[in-house]
C-alpha cells in the first residue's frame, strides 16, 4: 500500500541572517518547514558550526580539549587560523579576559583582540563577552566599533543590557545575539525590545541558553521546537534563527570532564560524543548556528548534517 506523506502547510518562515561580508558570507535560517523535512518546505541553508576561540588561555579546559590547539592557545589570531584549518565555518571569539574575575581586560583591549582575530581569518566572526551584563555592554560598544562593517554576530544581549549592544549593532552594521533563559516568552520579549529600537528582525539570533545532554536538553529542545513552530505560523518575533552554545555546556558536564576510567571508558571519545549528540539533537530541534569546541566534534557534526541535508526520496 502506498504511503501518503502528510505535509503541513506553513504560512511563514524563519528569517535568513547574513553574517560576514562577500565573498565570505555565511547564511543561516530561511527555513519554511521543520528541520530536514525537505519534502515539505525549503531548508535553504544548512546548520553551521563556529569553533570557539578565547582571548586568554582557558583555565579549566581538559587536556583532551587543549591538545588539538597546542601551541596556539595564548594567541587568539593563531588559534583562529587553526580553527579554520580544522574546517570551522565561523569563528566565535569569547572575550573571557574581560571578566572582572579573570584579567578584567578593558573594552579597548577586547577590541584589539577582536581586530587581531578578524585580521587573521576570512571566515565571519561571532564575538561574545564574558557574560557579565554590564561589562559586556561596555565591551561590545568598543568591539562593535572596531569591527565596523564586518557584519559580525555579537552578543550576548540580555534584557538588562540590550540597549547598548543593539545601538552598537545598528551603528556598525552587525547582527545581534539575544539571550534569554529557556523561555519562549522571554525570548520573544527581548526580540520585541530590540526590534523596537529599529534593528531589523533579520539581524537577530535567538540564544535560548540551552543545556547539554543530561542537563535539561529536553527542555531546550521543546523551547526551540516551539519557537520554530511560532516562526512557521507567522509569529514575526519568534522567526529568528537560533544559536546554540553547545561547547560551553557539553564541556561543563561531568561526563566530559571525567578522565579515562574503566566504567565510562576513554574521556576523549566520551566528551566528543557528548558534544556531538547535544549538537545534533538541537539541529533536529531547529538550531541554525552551533558553537562547538573540539575539532573532532565539528567533523562528526558536519558529517551528520551532510547526510541530513540530502533530499528525501519521497
Amino acid at each position, binding site marked *: 500500500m502506498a504511503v501518503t506523506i502528510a505535509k503541513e502547510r506553513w504560512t511563514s518562515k524563519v528569517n535568513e541572517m547574513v553574517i560576514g561580508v562577500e565573498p565570505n558570507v555565511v547564511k543561516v535560517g530561511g527555513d519554511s518547514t521543520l528541520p530536514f523535512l525537505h519534502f515539505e518546505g525549503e531548508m535553504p541553508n544548512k546548520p553551521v558550526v563556529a569553533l570557539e576561540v578565547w582571548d586568554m588561555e582557558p583555565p579549566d579546559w581538559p587536556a583532551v580539549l587543549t591538545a588539538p590547539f597546542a601551541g596556539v592557545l595564548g594567541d587568539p589570531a593563531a588559534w583562529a587560523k587553526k580553527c579554520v584549518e580544522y574546517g570551522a565555518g565561523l569563528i566565535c571569539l569569547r572575550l573571557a579576559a574581560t571578566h572582572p574575575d579573570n584579567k578584567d581586560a578593558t573594552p579597548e583591549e577586547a577590541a584589539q583582540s577582536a581586530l587581531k582575530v578578524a585580521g587573521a581569518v576570512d571566515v565571519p566572526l561571532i564575538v561574545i563577552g564574558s557574560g557579565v551584563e554590564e561589562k559586556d555592554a561596555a565591551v561590545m560598544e568598543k568591539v562593535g566599533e572596531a569591527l565596523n562593517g564586518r557584519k559580525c554576530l555579537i552578543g550576548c544581549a540580555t*534584557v538588562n543590557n540590550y540597549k547598548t549592544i543593539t545601538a552598537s549593532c545598528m551603528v556598525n552594521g552587525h547582527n545581534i545575539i539575544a539571550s534569554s533563559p529557556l523561555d519562549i*516568552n522571554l525570548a520573544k520579549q527581548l526580540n520585541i*525590545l530590540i526590534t*523596537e529600537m529599529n534593528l531589523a528582525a533579520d539581524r537577530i539570533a535567538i540564544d535560548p541558553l540551552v543545556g547539554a545532554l543530561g542537563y535539561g536538553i529536553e527542555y531546550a529542545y521543546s523551547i526551540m521546537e516551539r519557537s520554530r513552530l511560532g516562526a512557521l505560523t507567522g509569529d514575526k518575533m519568534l522567526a529568528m534563527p537560533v544559536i546554540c552554545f553547545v561547547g560551553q555546556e557539553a564541556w561543563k558536564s561531568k561526563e566530559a570532564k571525567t578522565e579515562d576510567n574503566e566504567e565510562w571508558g576513554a574521556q576523549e571519545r566520551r566528551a566528543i560524543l557528548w558534544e556531538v549528540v547535544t549538537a545534533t539533537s538541537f539541529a533536529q530541534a531547529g538550531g541554525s548556528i552551533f558553537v562547538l569546541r573540539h575539532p573532532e566534534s565539528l567533523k562528526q557534526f558536519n558529517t551528520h548534517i551532510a547526510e541530513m541535508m540530502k533530499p528525501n526520496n519521497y
Partner: protein
Amino acid sequence: MPDFLVEFDPDGRQAYISEQDNLLQAIAAAGIPLKASCGGKGTCNRCKTLVRAGKVKSAASGKLTEAELAAGYVLACQSTPESDLVLEVPEESRLSEHRVVLDGLPAGESNAILPEDEGLCKDGECDPLFKKIVVRVPGPTLEEAEDDLGRLFRVLRKQIGADHLRADLETMRSLPAVLRQSGWQVAVSLTEARGYKAVGVEEVEPDGLARKYYGLAIDIGTTTVVVHLVDLETGVSLGVKGTYNRQAIYGDDVISRIIHAVENKDGLRELQKAVLATINELTADLLREHDLKATDVRVAVCAGNTTMTHLFLGLDPAYIRLEPYTPAANSIPALRAHRVGLKIYPQAWVQCLPGIASYVGGDITAGVLVTGMAFSDQMTLFIDIGTNGEMVLGNKEWLISCACSAGPAFEGGGVRHGMRAMRGAIEHVRIAPGGMVVDFTTVDSAPPVGICGSGLIDCIAGLYSAGVIDRSGNILPDLKTPRVRESDEGMEFVLAWSHQSGRKVDITISEAEIKNLIRSKAAVFAGVNSMLKMVGLPLDAIERVIIAGGFGRYINIKDAVGIGLLPDLPLEKYTYIGNSSVKGAKMVLMFRRAREEVEEIARKMTYLELSAGNTFMEEFVSALFIPHTDLSLFPSLQPQ
C-alpha cells in the same frame, strides 16, 4: 527573667516586655499602629523607632543611614531591650498618620449598586437578620390553657410564616412575667442564624419599652477594616468607619500573617487580638458618635478573605498555606458575639460570609453577590484587586474563580512612597515625553505625600509612553531628565520634588518597584487568561468587567489596559464598584434574598487552583511585559 517597662512618647502608652522580646512586640502591645511590611524580618525599614532613653541591643540595622543611627534610631523588629526604655515611634512609621476616613463614601466610589440607603427598606422588602416585631398573644382561658411559649409560637408562625421556631432559656425564663405585665402585647426579637433552620426568638419585651436595634456590616480586609453601623429598621448606614487592620504589624500580606500565626507561640492569639481590637475600636467610635450602647448592636455580618476569617475567629490557618491548601472551614455557622470577642450584645449572632477555597473567601462571595453576576445572562468578569487578586468569571449558568498573589502594591504597600487613596495621595499622573515634566493630581488636591494604586497605574503607563522605561520596566539609560537618577536601591524616577511635597522629601518610584508592579499586573492578567483558557472562551466573550478593590476613587481604566493589567475591552464594559465586600455584607444583613443568593453562589462557584499545572506560569511570564508579549491581545494599543 526581668520585664522591662517601655514607655512611648508622646503617646503616653506603656508596655512590658522581656529581654527576649523585640521592640516591635512592645509597640504592638501598646497598640501603636505600625506597618511592618516585611513581618519583622528586618528588611523593610518600616519599623524605624527612636530610642529616647534606655539601652537596646540591635541585631541588625537594615537600611538605616549613618545619621539615623547617630540620632538613635533602631529597627524595632531587630532590637531587644537591655533596660527600661522610652521610645518614640516617628510619624513616618505610623499608620495612624493617615487614619482612613471612610465616613461617607468618597465621590466616585459609588453606592449605586445598592438601593439608595435612604430608601433601602421603603418598600417593606427588608428582612434583616435581626428584627423586632410586635405581636398580640391571646391570653389563656380555662378552656384553652396552652403554655405561654406554645401560645407565642402559634401567633408568630402565623404572623411571619416560619415553620421552625426556637427560644432560648433566657426567653423562657422571662416569658410568663413579660407577657402578663405587658397585657399580652409584646415586642419579640427574631433572628436568623446561618446554620440554624429555626428562627430564633431571642428576647421578649413589653411593647413600647423595646429599644431600637442596630447591626454591623464589617469588611475584614488584609490591609484595612471597614465597619458600617446600620439601623436595621431602615437599612440606613448611620456611620461608616475604616482604618488599617492592626495586624499590619505582623506583616503586609496573608502569607506573612499565617507564618506569624504558625511560627510563634502566641501568634494566632496576637493576630486575633489585633483584628478584634481594630473592629471593636471602630465600633466603639461609631457607637459613641451616635450615642448608642454596645448592647444595642444585635447582629454582625463579616466578609473577609479566608485567612482573615480564620484569624478573626482564631481558627488554625496553617493549612491554607500548605499544599493542597485546605482551610479549616469555608462555611462557618453563626456564632455568638461573646464567643468571638466582638464587643456588642453578647448574645448577638456574628455571621461570616461563606468562602470557596483558601484564597477565595467571603469577601469574594460578597462581591459576586453585589454584582448580581450569578443571576445574570451576561458573561461577567469580576476582579477584586487588593493584596491578593481574586477573579470570578461567569454568569447564571456557572461561576469560576481563582486567586493570584498580586502583592500589596496596588494598595500602596511594598512601594516606598506607596499609600492608600487618602488625602495627599497622587492619584493621577501625566508624564511628558522624555520624562522632563510630570503633572499629577492628588486626593483633595493636597500637597503630595505618596502615591496610591491608581496613581501607580498611571505612572507605569506614563513612564512607558514617555519613553522613560521599556516594555520590561527597565529605566532606559542616557535620558536627559534630572528626574532619573541613581539611588542606593538602583535607578529611580522622581515624581514630585521635595519642595512640592507635603513631606519635604522627593517622592520617587524605583526601577525595582516598577518591575514589582509589572509582576503584580502580570499576575492579575495571567489569572484572567488562565480562567478563560480553562473554560475555552476568548477575551471578547466577556460582556462586562466589574472592578473592586483598593485602588482609590478613580482607576484609570485606559491606563490599566495600557499597562496590561486589565483586558483590552471597550471602556464602556467596565464598572468600578469600590468596596464590594462591605456592600455584600450589608446586603446579607438586610435581605433574605441576599442570604439565599450568597449561599447559592458559594455552592455554585468552582475554584481554579493556579499553582497546579503549567498554564499560569506560562501566562504569567508572557504578561511580564507592557502590555503583554502577545501584542495581538491588545489591539487597541497597536499603532494604526
